C-alpha cells in the first residue's frame, strides 16, 4: 500500500508535523532507581555536593556496602584512584547477580587514572574516563537520575 497522506510517509519529518507529536506525560516517565557510589575519598568529595541536590529516585552512597543495592536498577560507581577496587568488585558481583545495569566514571589525575580504570573496568558495562569533574553531575542529569 502506498502512503496517501503526508503524515503516513517519511516526508512527515518536518518541523510543522512535529507539532502533532504526542507529548510525554510526566507520570509516564521511566524513572530509574539509581545508586551513585563514591568508591574512594576523592570520589566522595565530588559526590557529596551532588547528594545535596534534588534528583529523581537517586541515592548517594559513601560507604560502599551492597545492602543499599536491594531495589536499584542502575549503579554508577565513581572513582578517582584504585582504592575502591575491592568495593567495585563486590558491587559488580551483586549487580551481575541481580541484573542491575552498571556504569563507571573515572575522574582521576593522569597518575591515578590507570589504577582507577583497572578497578572499574571489569565491573562496569559502560566506563567514562574524563578529566572534567563536572561530568558527574552532567552524566546524572543527562540520564534523568
Amino acid at each position, binding site marked *: 500500500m502506498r502512503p496517501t497522506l503526508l503524515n503516513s510517509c*517519511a516526508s512527515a519529518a518536518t518541523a510543522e508535523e512535529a507539532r502533532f507529536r504526542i507529548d510525554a506525560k510526566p507520570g509516564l516517565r521511566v524513572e530509574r532507581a539509581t545508586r551513585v557510589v563514591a568508591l574512594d575519598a576523592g570520589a566522595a568529595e565530588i559526590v557529596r555536593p551532588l547528594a545535596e541536590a534534588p534528583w529523581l529516585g537517586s541515592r548517594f552512597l559513601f560507604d560502599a556496602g551492597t545492602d543499599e543495592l536491594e531495589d536499584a536498577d542502575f549503579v554508577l560507581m565513581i572513582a578517582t584512584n584504585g582504592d575502591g577496587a575491592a568495593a567495585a568488585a563486590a558491587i559488580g558481583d551483586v549487580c551481575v547477580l541481580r541484573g542491575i545495569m552498571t556504569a563507571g566514571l573515572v575522574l582521576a589525575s593522569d597518575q591515578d587514572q590507570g589504577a582507577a580504570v583497572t578497578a572499574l573496568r571489569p565491573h562496569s558495562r559502560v*566506563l567514562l574516563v574524563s578529566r572534567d569533574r563536572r561530568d558527574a553531575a552532567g*552524566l546524572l542529569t543527562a*540520564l534523568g537520575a
Partner: protein
Amino acid sequence: MLKQEINELLTRTGPDTEMGDLFRQYWIPAMLAEELPEDGCPPVRVKLLSERMIAIRDSSGRYGLMDEFCAHRGVSLWFGNNETNGLRCAYHGWKYDVTGQCVEVPSEPANSGFCAKVKLTAYPLVKIGDVLWTYMGDPAKQPPLPEYEWVHVPSEQTYTSKRWQECNWLQALEGGIDSSHVSWLHSAGLKNDPLFKGSKGNQYNLNDMKPYFEVVDSEGGLYVGVRRNAEEGHYYWRITPWVMPAFTMVPPRGDHPVHGHFWVPIDDENCWVFTFDYQPVRALTESEVQAMKDGHGVHNEFVPGTYRPLANKDNDYLMDRAAQKRGETFSGIKGIAMQDASLQESMGPIVDRGKERLVSADSGIIKARRKLIQAALDLREQGLTPPGVDPEHHKVRSAAIVLPKDQAFLDAAQDALTVQPGVRQATV
C-alpha cells in the same frame, strides 16, 4: 533529557550563535573539488552555517568563496560569467575577484576608484585532497590548514563522496559517535556489504550483541571504545575517534579501506555528510572504488546529477519490507549510509532532546554534547581556542584491535590511534 535552551545552543550554527561561533574556529569541508573541475568553470552555490555563498575557480585556478549576492542590487552571482580572473554579475556587469573584491563597475568611470570601496564578504577556499575547505571565522585567527590523513594520502589511496542529509548536523554527528547501534541497524551489512564483509572482527561483532563501552577524553575530542569478547583472556576493541567539532572515523574491518565522516551544517535543518574511504599504505583497488561509486560501504547512490540520495524521504527511502523480512536488512532500508540517514531524518529536522531517554550506553553522546557546550561557552566568555583546531588533533586513526583483558585500550592502542605515515591501519 536536555533543556530546550541547551538544545538550541547545540544545534544553531548561524552567524552570532554560540555553536556558529565555534564552527567558525575550524577549517571545514565546503564542497568536493569535483564541483569546480577546471579553471574558469561555472560558479557553484554553496550554503554553509546558514550563510549563502558562491564558490568559484577563476581563470588562473584560484579558488574563492564569497557572498552569493551582488553588492549592487542583490541578485545572485550564480547567473554570472566566470571571466578572466573574476566573476561578472549578469545584471549590470559588476565584477569580483576570488577575494570578493569588486574590480570593475562598468557604469562608473574607469579611474573613479569606486569599485575599490566595494568588497563582498569572502572566505578562503583551499583544495586539500578531493575536498575544498573553508574557514569562515575571524581572518586574524585563521588556524593552520587541516591535517586529516584521508586528504593527505596520495590520490589513488582515497575516495570521498558527499550527500545531503535532511536534518540538523548534531543528530547526524551523534550517529557517528553512537557505536551501540551498529550491531542492530547495520548487522546485515557486516555479512553482505563488499566493503565490510569477510573480516574476523565481524565474527566478534556478531557473536557478542551486548558490548561494553569505554569513553575516554582526548586532546581533540573523544575516543569511544567498544569491547566485545574475543578468544580466552582477550577483548576485541573497536575504537572510534571524534575530533571536534564534527569529524568521526569508523574502526576498520580486515583489509577493507578505513572510512569516516565530516558532518557539516548547511543550515539548522540540513547538513552535508562528507564520507571518505582510504588506505594509509596502498592504492584503492578498482573494485573497491567501484563499490564506493555504487553506493556500498558508507557511501550511497544518488539522484542522478545531484548530491541527494536516491533513497530519500520523498520515496520512503525505498523501503523494502520483503528484504527486511528475509533478514537482508534490519530496517528495510538498503545501505549503511541510508540506514543511518533515514532514522536520523525521521527524528525531525531538529530533534527535541528534552523528550529523549538516554541510558548509560549513550555516554559517548552525553560527553560529546558536554564538550561542545563547554567549548562554545569557553570561546564566548573567555576567547579560548577549542579542541580540534590544532592540526595535531587531526592526526588520529580509528582502530580495531584484540587486546589482553587487563590492558586499557588507550595505553595499548596509542600507536594504532595515531597517524603514522607508511604504517598500515590496526585492523582485525
